[in-house]
């Protein structure tokens, strides 16, 4: 885990109201695994850091994909090249991508696309054939970038690709990785209990000390999303007890 002041290197738009910002963070870029996240801090700005999946890691840089949903994300999107942002990471346990099996399907809803480029990279490296299924509300909300082998597109309103959810559009595979609103992940759990899903919770610290990021488990009790997650076996999470109305989920 590293704590650095990361320089903003650029910003580009990838969907309606969705942007990628590039940060200079060599140690994080060198060590991050698919599904891990960074905790970004702004000063002046809100008190707490904000968690973001690492979208891509290229040489000394990491990328983060985001939408403005509140004060913190709006402020991040207002940063200009050369500004510094405090970056803590990589955090959390990412996807476990092992060789063995032949195919992987990556299922994302909205901003849930965030961990997928790195996941696709690692899955390919593990010799798996990768299929992406990316869904959003409508065509303009689909992330325009993909590093994957094949992309199946799904939209709720049918304005592009499959008319329906990305879960419904996804084929079966040996390895299923998913990220998106928690209610979408609950649907994944119904179909593939062994899928690995990256959940979202409010987070206070991102490092395991505040106990704020509780994930209710089927076996009872709670896990910490920031250290024991954010990636879980879909069948292990008590979806009914996990809030599905976080801001991010609300706007994704």
């Amino acid at each position, binding site marked *: 885990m590293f704590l650095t002041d990361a320089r903003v290197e650029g910003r580009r738009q990838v969907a309606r109201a969705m942007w990628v910002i590039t940060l200079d963070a060599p140690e994080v870029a060198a060590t991050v695994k698919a599904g891990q996240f960074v905790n970004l801090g702004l000063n002046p700005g809100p*008190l707490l850091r904000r968690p973001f999946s690492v979208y891509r890691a290229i040489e000394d840089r990491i990328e983060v994909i985001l939408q403005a949903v509140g004060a913190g994300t709006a402020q991040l999107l207002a940063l200009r090249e050369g500004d510094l942002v405090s970056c803590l990471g990589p955090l959390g346990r990412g996807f476990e991508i092992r060789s063995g099996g032949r195919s992987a399907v990556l299922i994302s809803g909205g901003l849930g696309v965030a961990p997928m480029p790195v996941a696709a990279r690692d899955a390919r490296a593990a010799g798996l054939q990768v299929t992406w299924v990316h869904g959003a509300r409508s065509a303009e909300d689909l992330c325009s970038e993909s590093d994957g082998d094949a992309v199946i597109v799904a939209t709720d309103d049918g304005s592009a690709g499959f008319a329906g959810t990305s879960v419904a559009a996804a084929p079966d595979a040996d390895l299923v990785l998913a990220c998106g609103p928690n209610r979408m992940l609950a649907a994944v759990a119904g179909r593939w209990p062994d899928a690995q899903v990256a959940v979202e919770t*409010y987070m206070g610290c991102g490092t395991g000390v*505040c106990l704020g990021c509780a994930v209710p488990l089927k076996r009872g009790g709670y896990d910490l999303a920031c250290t024991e997650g954010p990636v879980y076996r879909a069948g292990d999470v008590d979806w009914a007890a996990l809030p599905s109305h976080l801001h991010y989920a609300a706007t994704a």
Partner: protein
Amino acid sequence: MSVDMTVRIGGLQLRGPVMAASGTFGYGTEVPLLERRALGAMVSKGIFLKPRHGTAPPRIAETPSGMLNAIGLQGPGAEALIRDYAPQWAGWEFPVLVNINGESVSDYGELAARLDGVPGVAGFEVNISCPNVEQGGMYFGNDPRAAAAVTEAVRRRTRLPVWVKLTPMVADIGVIARAVESAGADAVSAVNTFVGMSMDINAYHPRLSFGTGGLSGPAIRPLAVHLAHQAARAVDIPVIGVGGIMRAEDALEFLIAGCTAVQVGTATFVNPKAIADVHDGIAAYLATKGFASLAELPRYLPRD
């Protein structure tokens, strides 16, 4: 110039005045990038005798310069603490106090007795912000008799230092501070979080599943400085200031207001190195002012 930062608090000699506040540092084994050299002491996450799952999510909500939490004292209970954590603490170069909790006076006494003598446990911080289940859920912390009873129950079961963590939700904190002093407390920590609430205006109910939560962070600092100061004016035992400390300047406000030491809580969530930054900043400030030791810092402590 090297400044003498040591402080003495109710039976313990600390190498520095900055401690980790309960519930914000886990059991000391989780904190990343930790600079141990700066820790005067650590107070563990609050535990009950028995394991507890804690409350359902959402457990935290951010507010201006603060955060609400309702963790519900999730924890492994005394046996797991003794087995998993205390042995590690025994090897550390600073004391670890256990923050103890109960729903009845006897709960507290029993927990202290169970932990007394366990290597690694250097003392107790008695959290009296819990509801007194025996007496209909009123808080131990805002009734001087109940606060004294809990303190006494712990005092009778241990020779280790007993600190009492005061709640701010009282009309007069001096009354509670004096009550626990008389009951044998070696120090008081002031203060715990303030009860607050935040509404989800789209869902028409509180953001936290528990409804209310405890407010911490810089938002409460001026309130905490005042309460710590009131406590320091009321008692002769040391007062440990807690609430909203992010930087050395903030800690110095508490120290000047009459506190002997301070605890850093929420700041660690934002800056894992907060405790070291606060410690080093106090030392640098004292050096700049020409003080050879923290003891020389002038205090503002008029007695009535």
